[in-house]
């Protein structure tokens, strides 16, 4: 038998090896996949409806959706003015203030800010403050956000993200969807 001749042993060797590779990969997948969020955790991601009638201008509450906290903050006129006055070069992630302030369909009641309560740096919960243009200070690594959750300075790279949300009425906020009547 010469060495360049394909033998039955070569065939069995290659076939077994390939089946082995496919088999190991197939067997490994369930062990990896089980690490992902399970069905119960994913099901808990349904939209939540919150009664915000007790939130006065100048105050904020924390609500949870998908196990994560979100700020619902109602701004005073002075705070809206301060937020609108933040210039582009003061911001790390420039975004107009009016894109971040919303509310019920009634234009006069648009003084609400709904943002994630986890700092975009490493996930701590910033403290609500009210000084100058500052709306939040993160106690962990010193990030400073304005009244609409835009990053002013510190290590956080981007603004506090806004979850999908919609006001079902003047007093009821739904987090988890941006379609009214859902």
């Amino acid at each position: 038998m010469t060495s360049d001749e394909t033998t039955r042993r070569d065939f069995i060797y290659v076939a077994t090896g390939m089946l082995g590779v496919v088999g190991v990969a197939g067997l490994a997948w369930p062990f990896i996949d089980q690490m992902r969020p399970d069905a119960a955790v994913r099901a808990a991601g349904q939209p939540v409806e919150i009664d915000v009638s007790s939130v006065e201008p100048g105050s904020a509450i924390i609500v949870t959706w998908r196990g994560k906290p979100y700020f619902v903050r109602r701004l005073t006129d002075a705070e809206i003015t301060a937020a609108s006055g933040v210039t582009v070069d003061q911001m790390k992630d420039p975004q107009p203030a009016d894109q971040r302030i919303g509310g019920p369909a009634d234009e006069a009641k648009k003084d609400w800010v709904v943002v994630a309560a986890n700092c975009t740096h490493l996930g701590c919960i910033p403290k609500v403050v009210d000084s100058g243009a500052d709306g939040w200070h993160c106690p962990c690594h010193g990030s400073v956000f304005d009244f609409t959750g835009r990053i002013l300075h510190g290590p956080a790279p981007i603004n506090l993200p806004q979850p999908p949300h919609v006001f079902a009425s003047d007093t009821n906020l739904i987090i988890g969807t941006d379609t009214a009547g859902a």
Partner: protein
Amino acid sequence: MSSLEHHGTYTPTSGIGKWIDARMPLPRLMYDSFVAYPVPRNLNYAYTFGGILSLMLVAQILTGVVLAMHYTSDTGLAFTSVENIMRDVNHGWLLRYMHANGASFFFFAVYLHIFRGMYYGSYKAPRELLWILGCIIYLLMMATGFMGYVLPWGQMSFWGATVITGFFTAFPVIGDPIQQFLLGGYAVDNATLNRFFSLHYLLPFMIAGVVVLHVWALHVTGQTNPTGIEVKSKTDTVAFTPYATVKDSFAMMVFFAIFAYFIFYLPNYLGHPDNYTEANALVTPAHIVPEWYFLPFYAILRGITFNIGPIDSKLGGVLAMFGSIAVLFVLPWLDTSKVRSADYRPWYKLFFWIFVADAIFLGWLGSKPAEGVYTSLAQIATAYYFIFFLIILPVLGLIEKPRRLPNSITEAVLERNRASGAQQVTGSAAASPENRG
């Protein structure tokens, strides 16, 4: 390696000894590795931390296994179960304090072990793989320590886990899926606690496996020594037992006396009071700090507050932090000097001690709030950390003029004894018990 000539050979005398030796010569392996094994005659007390670390690993596994008999890894019960260990379980307080302070002392010993390796150039050829295995052990220790700290489910546990798994969100696109994969959810929760408990139990045994490889690699090349010169003849070495065994044991006793002092008199000194408050996903403690042994890396993480080109400050901080550990792996190739020991490298010695001071300084900065002057100081200290590895070490090896090296370990020992006026060793091949550290 012919210079590693063993001191005596294993000769079983009893019948059962011979019977085992012919079938599975484990006693012979033990004898050759830990009795007759030759070690340089001039090892000082800086070389005792390997033995101390092995014992600490055993201590952590023993206390950990019994603590796991009383612990419950459910977010609703974990905090209470730890309090039950402290109050109700017989001697539970002692076992938990041994385990918690044991982690600190484990890291304390490993840092001294690493600094010893850096001072005496232990990582240089042919011991690169030995060094890298050590780095892997250190990484596994960090993962184990971090996950263990999450288990009591206190405020620092929860927020530490949030911050550390948050590192991965720094990477664009893949970051968030990786974090959800690690947490098993959108936030730190029950799934996270359970998998951390499982892995915290597993990793120490993986550490033990890598320790076996580490010791194997050590016994192929042999130990370095304070002169950095390789063993050349049998007179350069003494038998592991009794010389190294007794020296290691004495160091262990001293180390464990200090360890015991902390367990009995300062059991919470190295911990954080916030971790005696149960985890709360809606309140971040005013000042989050990791355990002391992670503080230097925490300071590096927070030091990067500026964007570097396309890399934003968050990713930059995470990369700098991972980089500060990754750089250790390539240390054998960054140091271009042929001379191992800092004793013969005056400039390296200076920069080495500045590096030690810098690492301690970074640790202190990591415990301070991330604001004002602390941030600037952290940036300077971080810069020195990387300059030391990436610029000083490669350049210094090319321009530094080392001191004259002795011809052999024996010559170095005899020279020292003469200089200190001690009684001269007669120069017999037998090991002198007078060789001091």
